[in-house]
């Protein structure tokens, strides 16, 4: 599923004021914990622009595998969207498999990967 960036969107709310530098790592961990605590989430990985994972809740080898493969796939998905329409860009990527669903939120510098087991 790809979300299309629409023109003429409502004006964005002002960005929240950043906390003090000393509290930043704790804020990052808290945000990741909130996502990880959601129903069915198996793992959360944050990857930087080179495809190297910087935060993860899974074991090393699994993390490295997910990070490398999904980084490449996200770049390919993004170039697909932009080839079809150069004014468009990738906002979200979801892969559904037999066992679980992988969600990727891309950005210029980071990638957030969340793996969920949508148990019915």
């Amino acid at each position, binding site marked *: 599923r790809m979300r299309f960036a629409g023109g003429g969107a409502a004006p964005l709310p002002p*960005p*929240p004021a*950043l*906390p003090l*530098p000393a509290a*930043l*790592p704790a*804020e*990052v961990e808290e*945000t*990741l914990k*909130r*996502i990880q605590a*959601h*129903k*069915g*989430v198996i793992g959360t990985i*944050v990857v*930087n622009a080179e495809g*190297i*994972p*910087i935060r993860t809740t899974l074991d*090393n*080898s699994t*993390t*490295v*595998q997910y990070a*490398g493969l999904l980084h490449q796939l996200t770049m390919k998905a993004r170039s697909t969207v932009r080839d079809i329409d150069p004014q468009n860009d990738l906002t*979200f990527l*979801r892969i*559904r498999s*037999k*066992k679980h*669903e992988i*969600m990727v*939120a891309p*950005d210029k*510098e*980071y990638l*957030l990967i*969340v793996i*969920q087991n*949508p*148990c*019915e």
Partner: protein
Amino acid sequence: MAWEDGGFREADGGRSGAGLQASVLLESRPATACLSPAAGMFEDSAARGADVESLWRRDQGTRCEAKSCQTGEISTVEAAVQSHSSRDAGMQTNQSEETIQNLDLQKEAPVDYAGLLSFLQGVEDVVIKELNKNWRSHAFDGFEVNWVDQNETVSCLHSLSYPEAQDQKLQVTSISWNATGSVFACSYGRLTLFISAWSSHCLCSVDPLSSTGGLYSGEVLIWDMSRIEDPLIWRTGMTDDTHTEPVYQVNWLQDSKHSYHFQILSVSTDGKILVWQTQRDGQLMLVEGFALVAQQIPWSMKLKKRTRGETAVGVTSLSFSCFDPSVFIIGLEGGYSLKCSTAVETAAVPRTGNSVPLKAPAEFAFSPHGGPVYCVSCSPFHRNLFLSGGTDGHVHLHSMLQAQPLISLQLSKKYLFSVRWSPVRPLVFAAATGEGEVQLFDFGKSSQKPAVSIKQASAQTPVYCIEFNFKQPQLLAAGDASGMLKIWQLSSDFIQQGPREMNHLEQLANEVTD
């Protein structure tokens, strides 16, 4: 300049500018014919016009020069190039240690927390919204994709028989696949009476080339298939330690201390479960053992039948739990199944004359079948579930947490000789019946009748043994009393796990009543 009439004029030349230069000259000449000579003084004359010549063009012409130019010729050359030979080379980076080190380095390197935090805060809402939607969504219920061609039927791939065995009218008593799934071995023998005496061999092989077997006489042997002359390499011999009754089952055990040493476990109706170790002189040495004596078995209060005394209890089958290697289930001649552990310390009573003291492993007894239990099988997908089948034709699905079975099915009016869980489908098992059929049962489809019933032989020829191939899960080997071995290829729905099978299995296992 001279004019034609003889007059001459003065020309003023050499003066530049735009002005015209004119030179007018008055002429005087005598008049000619138009006048009469007698006219006298007045005469008509016509003065010629004056001409003005432009000189500027000529001046300009003297000052300018006409020139032209042409580029020099461009020289071109054509040349072509063709490579004569080419080579393909590939490269693959190793994923192992470097990337893991990178991960560690990155954790220590300063992460731009401000940027990371703003990114996370931006995507958090979107991601949580998608997670919630996904949790509640029914969009993919029952949606399945076929990536491989579906095979709808069960077919017989091979039908094998051993001519010498057929001459002696021997029956297939046991089958085993090797570890790579490419070879299987089967043992021939004869079942004289169904209840009391199994004969000949039972087999188990784990190494691609060596396999072990147990004899009717109680001995345990190991063969090495790569040796052509004398494949027998180890045997227990007839010592005080060997079984005194037929060996029903042998298993390979991996030694926890040295992973390359294997031990053999043998099960016999003399009530002993013995663990053997290979020695250098071709002898198998007893290292550990368990003995089952009636008074040491913990009968639960719900079981009505109790046997007393120090009588040995015959063990016919054994199955290790796939989740906990110290837990195993055994099936007894008396119809009971027992949960046992290798980690017990209590010694068996009475002290038999074995070189190694035997232990009493029984921990829990399950409710009995109506006849001897011939087969038990622990589920590879759930730590508490196991199946037991016996001569009453029933299959019981037990949870290790309670004595009563969770489900009891009658599959045959005759005996059940072998029960095996499928290695890929958590809800499927196969059973070999005395009516010559192999029945495949699926708890997900129907809990009353089998999903597929494969007719291996006539109704008088029981099927004695079945084994799934763990490496190629579509293959099922079955051997029967006529000495025929058939390899069946199963249809696609027996090969792939369905989306909610594990949940269904968990539900079945949780139906334990207190």
